[in-house]
């Protein structure tokens, strides 16, 4: 990843277990970037757009997003990130969720999601998928975000 500035991974995932498994498997893939974990959409959005140490004010980020959140739908967060004029619209968003509904998948890509991954229930596959995501993250180039105005 970007050597000059550590890319922050922002994970918005309401299930603590899933978050822990994702983190473990990303680490196993050799990714050591900081992971910021939020269990609901509100706090996730606040961190993304407002926190001084958050990506809107402070460097490049990659978002791991679950769609089924207690307080809002993940697609709302996605549309906020990818909205016209958003400081984060170039930030890659990986939707990582249990939903494999075709319409939902289409909708996410329409909204500007970069990668959509359905969490396999089978753990071996799940672990393999996350590790591959980790490998993917290790080669991905994340654009520098525009300076906040």
């Amino acid at each position, binding site marked *: 990843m970007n050597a000059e500035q550590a890319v922050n991974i922002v994970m918005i995932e309401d*299930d603590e*277990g*899933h978050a822990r498994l994702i983190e473990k498997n990303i680490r196993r893939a050799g990714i050591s970037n900081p992971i910021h974990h939020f269990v609901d959409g509100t706090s996730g959005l606040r961190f993304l757009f407002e926190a001084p140490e958050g990506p809107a004010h402070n460097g490049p980020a990659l978002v791991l997003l679950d769609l*089924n959140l207690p307080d809002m739908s993940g697609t709302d967060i996605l549309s906020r990130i990818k909205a016209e004029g958003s400081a984060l619209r170039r930030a890659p968003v990986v939707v990582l969720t249990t939903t494999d509904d075709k319409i939902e998948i289409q909708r996410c890509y329409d909204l500007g999601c970069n990668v959509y991954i359905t969490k396999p*229930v*089978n753990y071996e596959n*799940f*672990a393999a998928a996350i590790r591959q995501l980790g490998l993917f993250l290790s080669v991905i180039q994340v654009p520098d975000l525009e300076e906040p105005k």
Partner: protein
Amino acid sequence: MMAAPQTDERQAERRFARTVLLLIMLGFGLVSLAGLSAFAVMMRGEEQTELVDHTYQVERQVIGIRLALEQMRSARRGFALGLRYDSGAAYPEAVSTLFARIDGVRRLTRDNPVQQRNVERIERMAGTLDLLFRRSMESSEIRAERAERERQRLAGQVEGVASAMLAEERGLLTKRSDARADSMMLFYIVLGFTGVLLVLVGLGSIAVIRRYTSELKGSREELRRLADTLEDAVAERTTDLQRANEEIQRFAYIVSHDLRSPLVNVMGFTAELEAAIAPLQALVDTVEARDAGLVDPDVRLAVREDLPEAVGFIRTSTQKMDRLINAILRLSREGRRSITPEPLDLGAIARSVVDALRHRIDELGVTVTVSDRLPDLVSDRLGIEQILSNLVENAVKYLKAGRPGEIRITGRIEHGRVIIQVADNGRGINPRDHERVFDLFRRSGEQDQPGEGIGLAHVRALAYRLQGTISVESELDKGATFTINLPAGYVGEGSA
């Protein structure tokens, strides 16, 4: 509530039919009565005419008698005056006319004793008169006053009897004319009475028919109103059912999704646990290799047997749960899939379904026959494929051990519906499980084949969605026949 007005209506209908029939019969009776009386009056009239005619005939004869008498007198007078060449021949002619007339009257009045007596009398007197006339004409000496008076008296008597006869006949005629007028009057009265009755019957019939038709109209309107409300009720009910169905589909979808998340954790951390057992086992092995006494037997048992066993059970259970959740998801997704009806060649679909299972069919040596007279229908291709595929798959799966499998796919059209049958000679289904096998996660018979009890539930859900039904006929060890009843032309869910 529904039965009472119906019987009332029936009774009214019967009453109406009876009344109308009665009125019509009454009308017919009256008309035939009038006809009969007209006929009777006509017959009587003819009789009367004959009688009147008879009277006139008698009168003519009586008048003939008087005329003949007059001729006799004038002939004698002519003779007396010496005109013998003129009247000598005329007298016998006049006498024979007189007797002929008297005979005529006798013939005509054979049924009238009064006239018969008069005829007797007039004949006797005519005989005497004839004798007197002849004598007066034979000898000129006998022209005495006495003889003259005798002749005049007799002639007057004959005249009188003739007049009496005439009067008798005239009286009879008057009586008969009166009788005739009476019978005509009776006829007119009967006719008038019949006419009035006919008018009454007609009015009665019209009134009854009008009342009945208005009742009929009323009930027809009532029926239409009921039909309308029924349609509304059906539409409302359909909407309710659709809403309920959608609700269930959404519920199934959400539940299965939400169940998946914790399951990922259970499986994930079970895997982590399993991974953690390996170093523990290695540790126990190392310690044991160094000094067997250091390892407690409980620790050894826990690490070597209990932990792997527990993890194994958690794994198989979660895997099963995963399959069930996937099944629910599949069903709910199937329920939300939109149906696209199109004209289908059922034979081609059945053959492609069989071809897709060809590998297993050949492996097990099963014979599958697809009837070449399967009807075409308009329905959802994927739905029909899945129904047939599931049924054939089941038939192949649940064979009777030791009996070569035979599967037959047949179809026909019945009252605008397509009946498809998939029959096998497999192990069959116990009749008490016939409903149960269509329930989700329920299976029947020996559980020696893998499966979750989803296939038939899926098939039934599909059949319902395609506006059809499915049923099974089967006995243990005697094979099973699944019958699918579908509309020949699927109409959209909105217009159903």
